[in-house]
């Protein structure tokens, strides 16, 4: 009989086992631990070729348990500081660390370690994908559209900071918890967005990143101290966006805007899951930016066609977002919404308020919107002038192509 392995079993198990072993031996031995676990997987692959185990997951866990003693001897031989495993009680405690709930706890500790404020934000993402999610250097590089060398540098920098700062392998408590939890959410959101907005041709890699962010977010939701309305809201945002991922690009990997997306490709089980999360999210008194982003995404999903979008509701959510964090990008989005709602004067007024430089890398969006505005006014020279400015600034190739297509339509 051919045993069927659960999707991503190895990858997920890697993250689990690394977390458990770090909890036993400490972050100081992270690299040795990662090598040891990698070795376990290679051994599994080779020995399973002939006799696949009946319970692959239990086999892998047992193999990791066996590694504990190996590692202990190895580190001791190298005169490294190791926990005392010789006494009976310690050994029992170690057995317990391999229980499901304790594994989850160890993984949460690892996520919180990855999101330590002393780590550079970019290093956090790579570090989390490596140690929590079991991605290889090559896979992280492919997913983040970076060189493998860059990823190696980020990881070694992260490890150095962790050693130097003596970062502890704990879930912070009290006030520190809510700060760190914010940083964790940010990292998960970034991982999700890397997947969602990636220009990568292979939909698979994009989906894997999104799925990983969602899996880790769910892990936060299983733990009492991290089960907050804000985390529920973040999970809802992810569900709502992920539901549309298949329709975001067409077969030629061309970007499809909301107007042209095939709404029948939207995946409604995820919408339902997002709705459930949203109900939990609004049980709290405070609404975060994730709450409003989820509300906006939900409005788009509610509309049976682009024409039926409730732009007034969306505008209201953007206004809330802006009150929460007065960022120019929200004003720009409000201008886009007003434009869709055919309130051209209001849209133009919002655009006039904006200083494009405050949008940073997203400045091209401002010019593209301005071009759209002039298009509605049938002022073609201005429309072309501003789309050209947008084209000069855009770096994402998919978006560039999208804008180029629009420009061609203008001069026809």
């Amino acid at each position, binding site marked *: 009989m051919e045993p069927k*392995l659960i999707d991503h079993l190895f990858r997920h198990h890697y993250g689990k086992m690394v977390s458990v072993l770090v909890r036993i031996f400490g972050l100081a031995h992270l690299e040795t631990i990662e090598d040891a676990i*990698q070795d376990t997987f290679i051994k599994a692959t080779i020995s399973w070729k002939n006799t696949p185990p009946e319970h692959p997951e239990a086999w892998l866990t047992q193999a990791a348990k066996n590694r504990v003693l190996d590692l202990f001897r190895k580190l001791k031989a190298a005169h490294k500081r190791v926990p005392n495993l010789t006494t009976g009680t310690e050994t029992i405690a170690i057995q317990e660390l391999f229980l499901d709930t304790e594994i989850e706890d160890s993984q949460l500790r690892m996520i919180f370690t990855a999101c330590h404020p002393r780590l550079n934000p970019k290093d956090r993402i790579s570090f989390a994908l490596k140690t929590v999610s079991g991605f*290889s250097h*090559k896979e992280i590089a492919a997913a983040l559209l970076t060189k493998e060398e860059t990823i190696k540098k980020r990881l070694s920098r992260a490890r150095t900071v962790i050693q130097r700062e003596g970062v502890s392998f704990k879930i912070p408590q009290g006030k520190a918890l809510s700060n760190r939890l914010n940083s964790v959410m940010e990292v998960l959101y970034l991982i999700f967005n890397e997947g969602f907005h990636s220009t990568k041709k292979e939909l698979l890699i994009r989906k894997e990143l999104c799925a990983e962010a969602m899996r880790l977010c769910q892990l936060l939701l299983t733990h009492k101290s991290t089960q907050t309305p804000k985390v529920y809201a973040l999970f809802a945002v992810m569900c709502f966006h992920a539901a549309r991922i298949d329709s975001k690009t067409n077969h030629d990997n061309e970007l499809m805007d909301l107007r042209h997306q095939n709404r029948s490709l939207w995946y409604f089980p995820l919408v339902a899951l997002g709705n459930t999360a949203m109900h939990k999210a609004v049980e709290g008194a405070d609404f975060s930016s994730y709450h409003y982003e989820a509300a906006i995404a939900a409005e788009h999903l509610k509309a049976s066609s682009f024409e039926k979008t409730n732009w007034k509701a969306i505008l209201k959510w953007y206004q809330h977002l802006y009150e929460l964090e007065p960022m120019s990008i929200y004003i720009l989005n409000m201008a886009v919404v007003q434009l869709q709602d055919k309130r051209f004067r209001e849209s133009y007024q919002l655009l006039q308020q904006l200083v494009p430089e405050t949008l940073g890398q997203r400045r091209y969006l401002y010019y593209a919107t301005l071009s759209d505005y002039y298009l509605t006014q049938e002022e073609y020279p201005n429309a072309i002038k501003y789309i050209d400015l947008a084209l000069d600034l855009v770096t994402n190739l998919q978006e560039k192509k999208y804008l180029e297509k629009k420009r061609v339509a203008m001069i026809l």
Partner: protein
Amino acid sequence: MKEFMMIFVGADYADLGLSPEELQSRMGKWFSWGDKMEKAGVLRGGNALTPDIRRVSGEHRTVTDLTSAEVKEIVGGYYIVEAKDMDHVQEIAQDFPDYDLGGTVEIREIMVFDE
């Protein structure tokens, strides 16, 4: 029917830097190959070999311990199958999962001595 050995030669998995995900997908391919041979009733046995090598050679019985990193190619394992002829085994070997890693299958017939 005759018996043949398929000997797998190539780089050691540990030296290829495969990720857990890649290892798993390779695993899946080995499973389905084994399953296919099982169903066809051709599989007679086989083993995977660890990458540690001790070589004893020459008149002086010179002993060398080697690791996979020191040799370019290593025998990673073998299967014994029952088949009509070499061509038949060649067909079976089409599904060997590691060609993309530069792997090789060497097919050898097991010699039978007349009594």
